[in-house]
Structure formats: C-alpha cells, structure tokens
C-alpha cells in the first residue's frame, strides 16, 4: 500500500482538481476522495473586504503541518493526503488552502480532512490581515475554531455542535 503525502506552502495559486486527481490516478484501492477548498470571501465579520494577506512563519509552518499529516495518517487508514496552503495577498474568490484525503472508505477521508482543517485554522502559524475600506486589520481568532480543533483531543471524536 502506497500512502502518498504532500505538504506545500506557496504564494502562487494551485489547482485543487489536479491535486485531487494525483491521489487517485492509476490505483484502484481508493474508494473515497474528499477535497476541501478554503476560499477568500468578499466579507469579514459582515463588512466587505478588498483583499486578504496571509503571513506565515517559514520553516515552522511546514514542519507543523507535516507533523499533523503524520498524525492523521496514524489515526485513520488513509491512502493519500495533500495539504497546500498559500501565503501573501489574495482577493475574494481566490483559493487559500486545499486539503485532499483519500481512503478505502469515506469515514476516514472525511474525518482526516476535517481534522487537518481544524488544525490549520487554529494551530498552524498563519495570520490573516484584511483590507477593509482602505484600512488593514488583523483577523481575530474565533472561539468556534478553537472548539472545533479541541474535539480531536482526548482520544475519540467528539460532537462539534
């Protein structure tokens, strides 16, 4: 069994569909493919934004994501995992992050993709700044994101709602 895993940080846009295709091409053990794409919205906290700038901690962020990809592979019977996260400036409608997971069965693929996204939202060293009416402001961390990330601790999966 070949478990593919890819972690990439980049300024340039990515092609989510092409990344998903790489995890299924030429193999017949994949039964479930989950692709999560996080997209820059045109509003933040109810107000329109012109753009988003993502700052990151080079070196730390790659290592931290790799560590969580490893953890996901230990927790669930995955066949492939891809995480690509952009940094720099993005305008509404642009893709920010993609997480692709594959497995024989859907439960593992869904759980691993959610686990990685909850982690990326709360513990990966990224910081979002938005441009609103000419002013730049830092996005505040959300308590709901912390709660979502917390459900993966202490063994099993907990209800998130």
């Amino acid at each position, binding site marked *: 069994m070949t478990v593919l895993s890819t972690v990439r940080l980049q300024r340039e846009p990515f092609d989510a569909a092409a990344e998903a295709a790489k995890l299924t091409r030429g193999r017949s053990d994949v039964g479930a493919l989950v692709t999560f794409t*996080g997209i820059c919205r045109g509003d933040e906290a109810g107000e329109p934004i012109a753009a988003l700038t993502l700052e990151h*901690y080079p070196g*730390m962020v790659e290592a931290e994501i790799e560590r969580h990809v490893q953890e996901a592979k230990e927790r669930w019977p995955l066949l492939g995992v891809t995480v690509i*996260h952009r940094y720099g400036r993005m305008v509404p409608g642009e893709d920010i*992050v993609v997480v692709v997971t594959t497995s024989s069965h859907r439960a593992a693929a869904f759980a691993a993709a959610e686990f990685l996204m909850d982690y990326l939202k709360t513990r990966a060293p*990224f910081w*979002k700044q938005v441009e609103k009416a000419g002013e730049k402001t*830092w996005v*505040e*961390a959300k308590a709901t994101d912390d709660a979502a990330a917390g459900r993966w601790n202490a063994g099993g999966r907990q209800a998130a709602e």
Partner: protein
Amino acid sequence: MKLRYFAWVRERVGKPEEDIEVPPGVTTVGELMAWLAARGEEYAHAFANPQVIRAAIDRTHVEPQTPIKGAGEIAFFPPMTGG
C-alpha cells in the same frame, strides 16, 4: 538569542526579528515577555496583554512557563488564523 515577531506583535515592536542578550534572571517564556514589555514603549504596546500572545521555541509551540534555556530562536505572535 534570536527573537522573531509575527503579525501585530511584529508591527507593534516595529521589526520582524532581533538578536538580544537575555539577563540571567529571565528564565521562562513568560518572564521573557515581562522583561521585553519593560524595554520601551513599542514593546510595552506589543506585550500589554501577554495572555493573548503565543510563543514558539525553535519552531515548536511552548507555554509561558516553558524554560528558555538553550533556545536558539524564540518567536512571539498572536493567536493563529490560518485555513
């Protein structure tokens, strides 16, 4: 010891990184933040609310009580907002 700052901590301190000599009495991440806050107005502003500031030693998340002995690089930043 190398210090790095990110997001609004970086903006308030006014620089992305610096090399500093830490006095011997400063032994933990929390003590380092308190010592930094007393270094000047920009640091006082950056570290006014130390409980919201996160830290990493050599690229691993740490807590305020973590000892800084042996650290090569210590980073301070606000709560993360990726994804």
